[in-house]
């Protein structure tokens, strides 16, 4: 109830002000907010202004010329009125996507940057689990937000776009799991965007207290967008000692979208903090994922899957920071590139001097399906401790004729054989994180993309 009120007032404060990405927008958003938050927004705006737009001269942006793909001066904050909390009024595609989900511990729905619906299993709510809009959390959980929102995980100083997000976020997701509480079913968040030419800034903050357990699945989708449209998210995931967290982000935005996601995970002692990023849609995808292993015994499995066609461009930039001894991280990113699509994988394992007995692995595998597609891979290691086991591997290959031949000799058509080989190649990622419904959904989406491509 309180949340609905907060959201209404948030929207009321904001309604009718169609604005470009300017300081005045940050000031309007800050109006009526607690002082600490208003100050953070304005500070973030300063950082944004002081930070030059990244160019391909920077190592981190070497293969993605940001200025050619994102035109901040032509974007504006969304003007659309938020939809009511009534599924009947939501777009059919959003409803269909949600209907495919099996059971959940709770749902949260964002439409055009605003949270329009939340529900949570009452018995979990009674045990202190919080799933709410970020805007409502500002009023209801100020201490937690003050401590964690855009501070240790994704502060504005992380980069130009991170600063812009911290200045202009409209709403987002706050998930809190108290000590020892374990959720059987995942929390499901579904985002829909519809307004072409707008820039949507949202944030996600997940705090899992000691020995708690939670899985979180976040999908963002849209139809094709007639103008360049930005979907920007900052994701902060904190796993306290012994907690187990799975974070899954699935992106199937329409063409015209620029999907930017800055994610950082902070894994405490003996915690497990796994992530999966699935990138299928959008014209441009840029994911920055930094996994920090902060406590001994921390463990992160980092999975990624991308499938490109047309002129899609994917840029996944990952880092594994081992800052404590005896932690483990294992990354596997796999992608297939069809049409004229292009992928960039840049990953780094950094092992600090103090992080002895580290096990860190990193693998990136690419399959090029057509002439004109391109894959760049930069798997890096920086190791300052000596008692470590680190390895990485990267491959770029094509459809293996022998596998195709084998399948075809069993009476399968070439196009079907190609689909099977690609799905098998990408399926390795999904098998490692068998989370209710996600694997099926993604497999279906990849199969759909294969069907429409030249390999159908």
């Amino acid at each position, binding site marked *: 109830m309180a949340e609905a009120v907060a959201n209404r007032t948030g929207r009321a404060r904001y309604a009718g002000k169609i604005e470009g990405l300017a300081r005045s927008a940050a000031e309007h958003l800050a109006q009526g907010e607690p002082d600490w938050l208003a100050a953070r927004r304005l500070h973030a705006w300063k950082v944004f202004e002081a930070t030059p737009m990244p160019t391909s001269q920077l190592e981190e942006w070497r293969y993605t010329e940001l200025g050619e793909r994102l035109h901040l001066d032509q974007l504006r904050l969304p003007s659309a009125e938020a939809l009511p909390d009534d599924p009947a009024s939501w777009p059919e595609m959003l409803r269909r996507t949600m209907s495919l989900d099996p059971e959940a511990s709770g749902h949260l729905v964002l439409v055009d940057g605003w949270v329009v619906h939340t529900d949570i299993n009452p018995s979990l709510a009674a045990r202190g689990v919080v799933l709410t809009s970020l805007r409502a959390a500002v009023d209801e959980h100020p201490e937690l937000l003050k401590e964690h929102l855009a501070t240790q995980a994704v502060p504005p100083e992380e980069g130009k776009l991170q600063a812009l997000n911290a200045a202009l976020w409209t709403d987002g997701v706050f998930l809190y799991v108290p000590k020892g509480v374990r959720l059987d079913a995942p929390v499901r968040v579904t985002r829909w965007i519809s307004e072409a030419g707008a820039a949507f800034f949202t944030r996600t903050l997940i705090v899992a207290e000691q020995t708690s357990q939670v899985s979180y699945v976040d999908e963002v989708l849209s139809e094709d967008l007639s103008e360049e449209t930005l979907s920007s998210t900052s994701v902060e995931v904190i796993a306290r000692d012994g907690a187990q967290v799975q974070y899954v982000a699935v992106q199937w935005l329409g063409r015209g979208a620029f999907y930017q996601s800055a994610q950082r995970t902070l894994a405490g002692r003996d915690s497990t903090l796994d992530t999966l990023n699935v990138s299928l849609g959008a014209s441009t995808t840029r994911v920055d994922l930094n996994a920090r292993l902060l406590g001994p015994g921390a463990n992160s499995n980092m999975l990624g899957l991308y499938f490109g066609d047309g002129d899609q461009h994917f840029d996944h930039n990952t880092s594994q920071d081992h800052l404590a001894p005896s932690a483990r991280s294992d990354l596997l990113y796999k992608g297939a590139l069809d049409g004229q699509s292009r992928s960039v994988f840049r990953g780094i394992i950094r092992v600090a*001097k103090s992080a002895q007995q580290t096990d860190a692995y990193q693998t990136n595998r690419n399959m090029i399906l057509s*002439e*004109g597609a391109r894959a760049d*891979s930069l798997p*890096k290691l*920086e190791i300052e401790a000596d008692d470590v086991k*680190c390895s*990485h*591997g990267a491959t*770029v290959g094509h459809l293996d004729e022998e596998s195709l031949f084998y399948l075809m000799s069993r009476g399968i058509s070439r196009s079907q054989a190609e689909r099977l080989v690609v799905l098998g190649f990408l399926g390795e990622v999904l098998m490692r994180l068998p989370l209710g419904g996600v694997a099926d959904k993604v497999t279906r989406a990849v199969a759909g993309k294969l069907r429409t491509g030249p390999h159908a």
Partner: protein
Amino acid sequence: MPKNELIEGLDLDQYKYDFRSVDKPVFRTEPGLTEDVVRAISAHKNEPQWMLEFRLKSYRTYLSKPMPTWGSDLTDLENVLDKIYFYVRPQDKMKNNWEDVPDSIKNTFEKLGIPEAEQKILAGVGAQYESEMVYHSLKKEWDDKGVIFDSIEDGLKNHPELFKKYFATVVPAADNKFAAMNSAVWSGGSFVYVPKGVHLDTPLQAYFRVNQERMGQFERTLIIIDEGAQAHYIEGCTAPVYSTESFHSGVIEIVVARDARFRYTTIQNWSNNMYNLVTQRAVVNENATMEWLDGNLGSKTTMKYPSCYLVGEGAHGSILSIAYAGDGQHQDTGGKVVHAAPNTTSSIISKSISKGTGRASYRGLCKVYEGATSARSNVECDALLINETARSDTYPYIEIEEQSANVGHEATVSKIGEEQLFYLMSRGMSQEEAMALIVRGFIEPIAKQLPLEYAVELNRLIEMEMEGSVG
């Protein structure tokens, strides 16, 4: 291992090439790099006008390019360069007869074992002292077959057409800041031509020695291996240890014609006050093979990435790289393979060892252009860390534009296993012996490719370096 060898090892200095001759060069430029320095070098060499113009243009290119901000830390380098002598002429004229080389220089090379090696195993020997080749000779049988093995200056003088056809085509002056610098002030280096179908069965060797303090050496080497020919070229480098920094920046250009085969071996053992920033590149034509064998043991800072540009169908490039980074050293080494033609293949194998406060970085590029159908490349990097202050990095760049390409990269980083040590020590080895044995095993795939003398030398160095590393 026989006991006396170990004791002998203990007697050796940490860096056994730390001796210096007192000699007076016949000419040297003022410290630092200016246009006057460039003109003075050209004048001393009596060069044609086009070369002077090339040097001056390169000098301007050098000034216009910023210092690299990646790789090794070069923040102090500008200060160092202001104090460096860019050109030091040790004697009047290059000699073809060993007896004619001045005593102080001759003694240096004799201590390094050069004349002895020449008699035994080499087809030809060149020796560079400071800025000039002081000695160059080629066995008569190869001379008779039309092989050219000259100083680069004599190459320009005696074979102007061949020289001009290839010079600065493989590594253009504007390639990078240090290639531009070398193009402006180059002096010394070899000019090699192996005619069609000639197989040199013993190596050519060039030896580079920096003797004076605050010396900058800028050798330039141009090697052309004509169709179906085969050759092996070895370069070695040493210098005495000074408290100030010295500087070495070479450019090596290699053209391997169709069906030819060439191997270039470097044993870089500069003293650890040396900045070593080198550009080495080979253009590899149809069905030709280029092999780089790159050993980096010395220097304070090395940035060096031997490259193969595979431009002819079926060309093959291979890079074997070994780096050892001890206290205070940063070896930023690796290799590049560029596939620009169908059915080209390449392999890079890199092994590095970091010890003490040393840092070994592998930096590499594998690029496959669209149209280089069925290109295949494999890269393997293994790093060994000897103790907890050492550092290892791997920075591979993989850029693939071709659907039918097959490219793989793998790297591992590990430390010497306690179990391996325990096993060997339980057989009566000391910890140092056991460590040296493990490290030798680690680099063996590369060491076994070296000519015997070098393999022995490498093993001895490893043994010396493992001393006192326990604990």
